[in-house]
């Protein structure tokens, strides 16, 4: 599979904090999930890869272009779509006008072709009916779709999505999953999220970050397999468990090192994630 993004030794500090600490990775086509607790460095990594912020050290290429030069960065940006964690808008613009504005900023200067592309993208994100509505009058979910439309306009080869489903209700989240899955067809998507279900359902690869470092890189199945034989059921909370909680059936689901004879359960991606974080010395809470 062709490598879209290749990074090695990325480092970035904020004062005394290492936001990125020697991050190396390789991204290929399809959706790659990026999991990690708050402050793990996910957003910083996404911003660096999206060329929104330069790293202190390290190098990376996107679709064969090196953003460490002005020319290379320009080429990367021509092939990139970026949905930030808190997308902002000009609230008096309509959905169409805003995506059109972003399309112009993406150097689409032919008015006819640009308008066709904006209509296509708004159709793709399900906003065709409200494209003439002012953004200030759209719901949070719709605004998020406007931002996704802005990221998708121009058919970028590399799409960076920073927690796109945060704050969305379950129905909107499902709808967004559909959009992301479709966006991942024929392009590389890097999806940062706190939702392990998003990763389980959408991603062919997953990265787990903690403390500015990549702690795991593999498939969702491999991450889940990390918890194989380490999830068990009990009638009381097991004090030896890394994490444990009472389930709807009244029994406790424990994650960690099971006692002898424990009733083992089928692990989930979340269990594998929790154990990976625990191994990385990150705080595990459940």
């Amino acid at each position: 599979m062709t490598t879209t993004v290749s990074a090695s030794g990325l480092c970035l500090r904020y004062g005394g904090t290492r936001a990125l600490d020697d991050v190396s990775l390789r991204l290929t086509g399809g959706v790659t999930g990026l999991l990690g607790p708050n402050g793990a460095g996910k957003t910083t990594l996404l911003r660096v890869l999206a060329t929104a912020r330069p790293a202190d050290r390290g190098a990376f290429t996107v679709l064969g272009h090196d953003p460490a030069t002005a020319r290379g960065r320009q080429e990367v940006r021509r092939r990139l779509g970026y949905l930030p964690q808190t997308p902002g808008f000009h609230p008096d613009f309509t959905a169409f006008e805003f995506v059109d504005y972003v399309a112009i900023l993406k150097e689409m200067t032919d008015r006819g072709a640009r308008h066709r592309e904006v209509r296509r993208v708004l159709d793709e994100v399900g906003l065709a009916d409200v494209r003439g509505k002012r953004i200030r009058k759209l719901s949070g979910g719709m605004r998020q779709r406007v931002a996704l439309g802005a990221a998708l306009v121009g058919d970028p080869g590399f799409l960076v999505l920073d927690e796109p489903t945060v704050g969305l209700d379950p129905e909107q989240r499902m709808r967004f999953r559909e959009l992301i899955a479709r966006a991942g067809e024929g392009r590389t998507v890097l999806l940062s999220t706190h939702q392990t279900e998003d990763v389980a359902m959408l991603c062919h690869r997953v990265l787990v970050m903690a403390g500015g470092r990549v702690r795991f890189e593999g498939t969702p199945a491999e991450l889940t397999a990390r918890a194989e034989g380490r999830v068990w059921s009990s009638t009381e909370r097991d004090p030896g468990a890394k994490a444990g909680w009472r389930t709807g059936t009244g029994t406790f689901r424990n994650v960690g090192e099971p006692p002898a004879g424990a009733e083992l359960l089928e692990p989930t991606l979340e269990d594998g994630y929790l154990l990976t974080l625990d191994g990385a010395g990150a705080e595990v809470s459940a």
Partner: protein
Amino acid sequence: MPGLTRALVLPACRTLPWRLVGAAGVAGLLLAALTRTTGETGERLSLPLLRAAVLAFAMGLVFLLDDPARHTTATVPAPRPLRVALRVALVLPAVAAWWTSALLLVPPDVRPPVADLTLEAGAAFVLAVTGAAAAVRFTDVTRPGPLVAAGLLTSAVLAVLFWPKRWALFVPVEDDRWAAAHDRWAVVLAGAVLVGGVCAVEPVRRRWGRGGV
């Protein structure tokens, strides 16, 4: 690039903070108009009132680079210097019209030397936009305007009170140092243009900034 600039003109014009600039402009014109009502003291007060008017309008110009969509458009290929230059160019006719109106509001017999005062006003306006460009360059905030406006106001007050006399900038018309002061205003203007230009460029590598780029 010309095609991109042409296509950007209308949407960029709509993203400008016209209401804030307009409000600051009105406040500035009211201050300039006070020179008509000050009677015999008009001559003495026309210069400080015009300077206050310039400061008021400059406080509106600091909002010029406020952009709620900054993060959404952070990684577009259209270069930041072009976008900043376009915003400045779009507001320039309004600035020229405002300054002309402010000068015309001052009765001709008490009007300070127009060329020198235009230099002061130009330096103040460029400083305001440079402050905004620096805030965009070194922080991640989408609306640096309020912070920069507070900084500009504080700096202006401190400069009037504590600026060293041998480098005086705010001198009355009859002062012997008037010409020298305006040489210094020219230096301030050139420095502000230079710093503004540097701040408008988006660095490829991280050098000294801890905040946004």
